[in-house]
């Protein structure tokens, strides 16, 4: 343990000597101060003692209690933007050099000549790199905890969930950074390639969301069109039956029982209501599209399974905090149906060009629902497995390399 503590202490001293560590901490402090400066009263939002706006009466202490406001800001801005993006990028910049400087000539020989196995050395050094984020997140979260408690009068220990989850999120990226830093021995290469990998993961994440969105849009369209076709068919049937009865009952004597109309032929229904054919065609197209998108979405999920899920880890945190802090979610209402609607043509949803806010909201709900179906173990477990594989490769490289 003496040697492990020595490495941890050394990493702390290293971080302590880096101005960026303190700059990031100062920025975190400023964000917390700004967070604490915002308030809400009966008139609207305040900044220190200035009244800013009530946003058309939507944001007052009556509509959003202070506790809710602070929790929402922490969850939607503090985590989603600052910890997941700003602080993580600064953490990467600060820690990208740890492994390259560790393995540079003249430094590594001394450490390798000590009675510590290389695997332990590397993993300890990697863990030390995570120290940066742990400290930053811990300080930020604790400060936010105080702000939510003191200003919002609501003490929420669940905010501390941010510490392990953000550190786990950062560890995915840092494992990539450590491997690249070890192989290239270059801080710049490690940083740039990690940011590139992060961008790649972002694209995969976006692709996954897009595939799911397109699939759900297609499914929504199929459902809408199925209903529309049914409505059209009912309407056309009624029309056809009336016509049939008109034709077949005009010679009947009064009081004679009316005959029951037969099942109308499809072709005659289509003739009766010309838009029915269009709706059927559209339905067939959307069913094909839904099948195709199902394949793409499955492929995207497959690809994502073997990669770290950066975005979903942060979403998981936001979602968990929302649940634990009783914040309003996005799934508030249920789908409505209108059977008495005249047989207008069904509105189709386009994932890439959403014009109808209502349809857009529903589609977003469906997409969110799909993401929520993914278990915590799938999100974290497979990501940590990826990290373990990357670290195993790095350990093998480190153990086998001659310095």
């Amino acid at each position, binding site marked *: 343990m*003496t*040697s492990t*503590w*020595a*490495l941890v*202490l*050394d990493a702390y*001293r*290293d971080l*302590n*000597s880096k101005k960026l560590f303190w700059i990031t901490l100062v920025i975190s402090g400023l964000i917390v101060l700004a967070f604490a400066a915002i308030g809400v009263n009966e008139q609207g939002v305040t900044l220190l003692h200035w009244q800013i706006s009530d946003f058309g009466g939507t944001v007052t202490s009556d509509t959003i209690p202070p506790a809710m406001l602070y929790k929402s800001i922490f969850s939607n801005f503090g985590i989603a933007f600052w910890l997941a993006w700003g602080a993580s990028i600064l953490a990467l910049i600060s820690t990208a050099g740890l492994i390259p400087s560790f393995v*540079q*000539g*003249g*430094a*590594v*020989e*001394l*450490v*390798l*000549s*000590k*009675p*510590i*196995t*290389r*695997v*332990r050395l590397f993993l300890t050094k990697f863990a030390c790199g995570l120290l940066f984020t742990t400290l930053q997140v811990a300080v930020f979260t604790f400060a936010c905890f105080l702000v939510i408690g003191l200003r919002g009068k609501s003490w929420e220990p669940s905010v501390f969930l941010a510490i392990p989850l953000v550190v786990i999120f950062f560890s995915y990226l840092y494992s990539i950074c450590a491997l690249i830093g070890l192989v290239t021995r270059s801080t710049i290469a490690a940083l740039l390639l990690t940011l590139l990998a992060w961008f790649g993961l972002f694209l995969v994440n976006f692709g996954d969301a897009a595939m799911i969105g397109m699939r759900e849009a297609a499914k929504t369209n199929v459902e809408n069109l199925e209903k529309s076709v049914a409505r059209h068919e009912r309407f056309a049937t009624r029309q056809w039956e009336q016509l049939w009865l008109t034709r077949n009952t005009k010679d009947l004597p009064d009081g004679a029982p009316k005959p029951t109309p037969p099942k109308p032929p499809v072709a005659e229904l289509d003739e009766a209501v010309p838009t029915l054919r269009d709706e059927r065609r559209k339905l067939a197209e959307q069913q094909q599209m839904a099948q195709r998108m199902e394949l793409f979405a499955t492929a995207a999920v497959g690809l994502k399974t073997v990669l770290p899920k950066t975005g979903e880890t942060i979403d998981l945190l936001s979602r968990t905090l929302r649940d634990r802090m009783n914040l309003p979610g996005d799934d508030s209402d249920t789908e409505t149906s209108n059977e008495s609607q005249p047989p207008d043509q069904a509105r189709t949803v386009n994932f890439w060009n959403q014009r109808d806010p209502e349809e857009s909201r529903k589609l977003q709900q469906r997409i969110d629902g799909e993401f929520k179906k993914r278990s915590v173990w799938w999100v974290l477990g497979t990501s940590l497995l990826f990290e373990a594989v990357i670290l195993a490769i790095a350990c*093998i490289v480190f*153990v*086998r390399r*001659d*310095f």
Partner: protein
Amino acid sequence: MGMGLVAAAPKERQVESAPAFGPVTPGEWGAGAPSHRSETGEWAIDLRNVDKMYRGKVHALRGIEMRVKKGEVFGLLGPNGAGKSTLVKILMTVIAPTRAEGTMLGQPVGHKPTLARVGYLPEHHKFPEYLTGAQVVEFYAALAGVDRATRKKRTPELLELVGMKDWGNKKVGGYSKGMRQRVGIAQALGTNPDLVVLDEPTDGVDPVGRREIREMLTRIKEEGRTVFLNSHLLSELEMVCDRVAILVQGKVKSQGTIEELTVKRQVYEIEVAALGADGVEGLVAALEGKQAARMLAGRVEAAPLGSAAGVNIAKRVGIRGQLASGEEVEVDHGTVRIATVDAERIQPTLDALRGAAYVIKSVKANRPSLEDLFMEAVTDPETGKALGPGAKKEGGAK
């Protein structure tokens, strides 16, 4: 100064017992050598068949056999690229050997826990610049498993030993190269080691500092530790080393005590006050007339007798022959050189010269310096030129 470094030596340290390298376990390349295991008690380092083939087929070490006695100062010499640092790094588990047999401090080479008993100062070391000198010493001692109390006690003593007491609390980033070397030596002693491996310890150190380091090495040796020294500064090695090995192109060219290595080339130089009218021939005649020697018929052009063979030293024209007792003799102007370490063997020659009325001006026993030996080792005997730096690629080696 004068501190007892051995007194506080904790011989039992908590260290790992895992192998140093993944692909090559100590059992594979170090645990063997049962044939000479019985001798490990005497040897701090006992190497056999150490080979290192780098990727790219550079054969850096080719069957190194080397022994370092416990308690001695051992010097490793060699030109640039001879494989010195590779050998040191193999001992310190920084590089995995292609093959290695033998022991270090009685344990197989590559045995990690043994490194707790070894102090190491690499060449071109880089200490973290955010640490102070004292923190450097403490940090590396802690990595070797030295407990906090011992580190706190020993660090000021070591800094005083290397003359850095007043600089111990200053950041390494502000140190000169010499100061870094001093702190480096202090950290190498931080584990209170049985074996100290120093790679170019006087690099960048001023003459005063070098002298202090030499004294330090002597003191370390007096405390019973073994010092393995890798240096280019031959004169310094000559002053402190008990034994040396000369490494050339990945092979040990020669090793032994400096006495053993130089004695073979000792010559006695007898200088006469003045040559007679017959010049050099008169001297030859005097030697042959008394049957003290049998000289060759003609003059030969060669480097002076006793100088390192093949070395590019200005050749002279002299007359060579053999004493009646078998030693080589050379007559060169007013000097007679006899290749022997035995003073008795030159007495007949002295008698012959005096008998011929020559005045003996001086009689000197000359031995080649370590530099001469080194130059001989690194010179191609065929061409007389220094061998190229670096180990040859496989297939291109002789």
